[in-house]
């Protein structure tokens, strides 16, 4: 998955598991950033329904000077309260508002902005506190008007913008069942080393929920110098963006119901580009990668330059990728896409280059306006407003990265290289699942699936 359970340690700590990060330009000169946590939530997972961790520091980071370090960070801290200590139930009646007395276990959170500059110590500003999360989507009796509950949880921020934190339908789509069965792509599995009849892709996450932190803030609040760039080729038009989760260095359990934590925050999960830690970094290094900042990613560049997946494809699909099999040079195309951004002069009118520092971040050129008709393949499909220029909820990042690794982007570096015909055709076949709906307004991520309705009878 993009980064659901992608590393050994974090797979045992779902509350802190950063599954996906999205960033895209939105109307009125704003940027929306979405970070998701708590992978593969089963909608009916009560009576202790999913929630954020009170002992986890959730963060969204923005690098606006290309050094792979945060210049602006938004921090989110959660607090849980139980209203009725005499019941095992999450709710004792319909939850009709965010202050319904029948809603037993609820969370609120604070939002703090941290500005880092080289000339002064970090400056922290509390933007909001006591902000309510909506409940989980239980079912038609408990949460009869879930969209209204979620809408009520959208909160304006001091200084401009909005924030939302709570359960949503996981927007990520992928056929995990086939991909992790020896790299199978169901639409092409007749060509696999162990062939079976071709089939349609199965979206493993089509009825899973996640916990979303969504932020919509003015572009000027994120860029260097507080500008609103209008020239896509301008150096100050690109933001590096990633999410993370951290835990305090020490925790002691004094009683079964009581834990105490102290010490500095230690990062346990992060996510910039989708699938980076999942399919680029070897298993033995995944935990270490999760603990490091993007500015340290040069040590992982070797895995991007010679990706394991590019070597596996010709083996798993014999005779299908002969040109890829012969491509032994370092993958300068992938190094640019994932670690530095694409420099000016490669794609006419486009760049998302942040400099020579190799860092895994989403790179969003904020001078490129939203597309009127988004292409699911983003930049590869001729749509510069999509991945790898930031990432939209509808971008088919599995297909985009599969095709890039298979060689479709290598001609950007070597005009003489001819990709295999299959490189431009492969996909896992999960795009456009009919049950996957998104909102056309903030926080954009769709209404979570209810426990009553999923799985269906």
């Amino acid at each position: 998955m993009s980064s659901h359970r992608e590393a050994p340690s974090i797979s045992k700590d779902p509350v802190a598991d950063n599954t996906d990060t999205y960033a895209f330009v939105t109307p009125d000169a704003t940027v929306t950033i979405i970070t998701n946590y708590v992978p593969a939530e089963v909608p009916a997972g009560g009576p202790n329904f999913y929630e954020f961790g009170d002992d986890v520091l959730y963060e969204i980071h923005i690098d606006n000077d290309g050094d792979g370090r945060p210049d602006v960070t938004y921090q989110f801290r959660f607090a849980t309260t139980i209203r009725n200590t005499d019941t095992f139930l999450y709710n004792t009646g319909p939850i009709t508002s965010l202050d319904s007395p029948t809603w037993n276990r609820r969370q609120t959170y604070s939002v703090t902005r941290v500005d880092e500059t080289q000339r002064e110590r970090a400056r922290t500003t509390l933007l909001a506190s006591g902000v309510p999360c909506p409940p989980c989507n239980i079912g038609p009796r408990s949460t009869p008007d879930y969209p209204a509950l979620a809408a009520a949880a959208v909160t304006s921020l001091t200084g401009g913008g909005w924030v939302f934190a709570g359960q949503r339908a996981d927007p990520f789509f992928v056929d995990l069942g086939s991909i992790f069965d020896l790299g199978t792509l169901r639409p092409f599995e007749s060509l696999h080393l162990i062939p079976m009849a071709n089939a349609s892709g199965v979206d493993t996450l089509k009825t899973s929920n996640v916990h979303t932190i969504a932020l919509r803030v003015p572009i000027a609040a994120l860029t260097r110098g507080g500008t609103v760039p209008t020239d896509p080729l301008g150096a100050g038009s690109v933001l590096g963006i990633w999410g993370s989760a951290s835990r305090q260095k020490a925790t002691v359990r004094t009683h079964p119901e009581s834990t105490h934590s102290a010490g500095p925050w230690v990062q346990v999960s992060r996510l910039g580009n989708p699938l980076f830690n999942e399919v680029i970094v070897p298993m033995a290094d995944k935990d270490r990668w999760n603990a490091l900042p993007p500015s340290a990613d040069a040590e992982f560049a070797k895995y991007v330059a010679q990706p394991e997946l590019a070597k596996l494809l010709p083996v798993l699909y014999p005779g299908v990728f002969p040109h890829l099999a012969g491509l032994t040079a370092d993958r300068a195309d992938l190094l640019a896409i994932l670690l530095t951004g694409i420099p000016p002069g490669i794609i006419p009118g486009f760049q998302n280059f942040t400099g020579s520092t190799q860092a895994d971040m989403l790179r969003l050129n904020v001078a490129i306006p939203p597309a009127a008709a988004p292409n699911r393949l983003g930049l590869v499909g001729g749509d510069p407003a999509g991945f790898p220029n930031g990432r939209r909820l509808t971008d088919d990042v599995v297909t985009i990265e599969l095709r890039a690794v298979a060689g479709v982007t290598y001609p950007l570096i070597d005009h003489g290289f001819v990709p295999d015909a299959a490189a431009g055709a492969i996909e896992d076949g999960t795009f456009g699942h009919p049950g996957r709906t998104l909102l056309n307004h903030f926080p954009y991520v769709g209404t979570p699936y209810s426990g009553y309705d999923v799985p269906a009878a």
Partner: protein
Amino acid sequence: MEPVSRRSFLSKGSLGAVGAIGALSAGPVALAAMASGVEEPLSDEEVSALTGPLFLHVRDAASGEIEVLVDESSVVFKDPALVARMLRASK
């Protein structure tokens, strides 16, 4: 400082053990006093300043390097004598 037996160390728990060295964050003077083995009793103000847990992490027993974890920060110092007392108390 009163001797720390295994029983008293364990019964005081983390907060008690920490209370004895909570003054370390006060700065070099306190650190010097600790290194010399002479420790002034904590003032009421110092005791009340400790509002949350405080943990000790012996990072290197050989050199006596200890990390104090409190609030959202850590302080690292060396006190071979204290490390020796803690290790022996744990036996």
